[in-house]
């Protein structure tokens, strides 16, 4: 079993829709949870960084962590064509980041 699993993708949504992305994990030692966005031919860009269970908001983005269920989510409200990218969940224990496989999101104008 992989340490980090993501919900199947890719996703295609109309502009203005809410995008919902999820990852589950098996290692309860993970302490920090991140979402990165990666555009084609670019490196991953840090979107959200959380530690505790609960919600964290930043503009149109909300990250949710449920440590008891070993489940994290990212919601993108009022999605825009510029949100079209691959989204990667990542989890950290000590120095090491473990990544999910990434979900490609396309927002249709």
């Amino acid at each position, binding site marked *: 079993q992989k340490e980090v699993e993501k919900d199947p993708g890719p996703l295609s949504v109309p502009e203005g829709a809410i995008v919902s992305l999820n990852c589950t994990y098996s290692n309860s030692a993970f302490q920090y949870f991140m979402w990165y966005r990666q555009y084609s031919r670019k490196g991953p860009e*840090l979107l959200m960084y959380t530690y505790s269970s609960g919600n964290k908001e930043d503009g149109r983005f909300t990250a949710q962590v449920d440590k008891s269920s070993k489940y994290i989510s990212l919601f993108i409200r009022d999605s825009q064509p510029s949100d079209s990218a691959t989204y990667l969940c990542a989890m950290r224990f000590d*120095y090491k980041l473990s990544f999910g496989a990434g979900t490609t999101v396309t927002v249709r104008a």
Partner: protein
Amino acid sequence: EAGVTQSPTHLIKTRGQQATLRCSPISGHTSVYWYQQALGLGLQFLLWYDEGEERNRGNFPPRFSGRQFPNYSSELNVNALELEDSALYLCASSSGTDYQPQHFGDGTRLSIL
């Protein structure tokens, strides 16, 4: 503030050759991490350098090696290149304080012919 910079952008080599990839971290960051992003395999941790020392390495053979210089920049060397080494190699940096997030460069795409 300048981000993590990597060079070259693209590197083409043949089997058996050696490749050297370079990374400059964000100013003030002392830790540098290397990852391999191969098609269908996601991001795999390669190496971690902090304060000039190799702190840990992922599950990769010894022909993947590197170093960190006194100015905290880093280089990744891959010897005896194989076709399956074709991938995007990403460098990330973070400050030395505990659990600060890693910030990535745009990577070097290594193509093995």
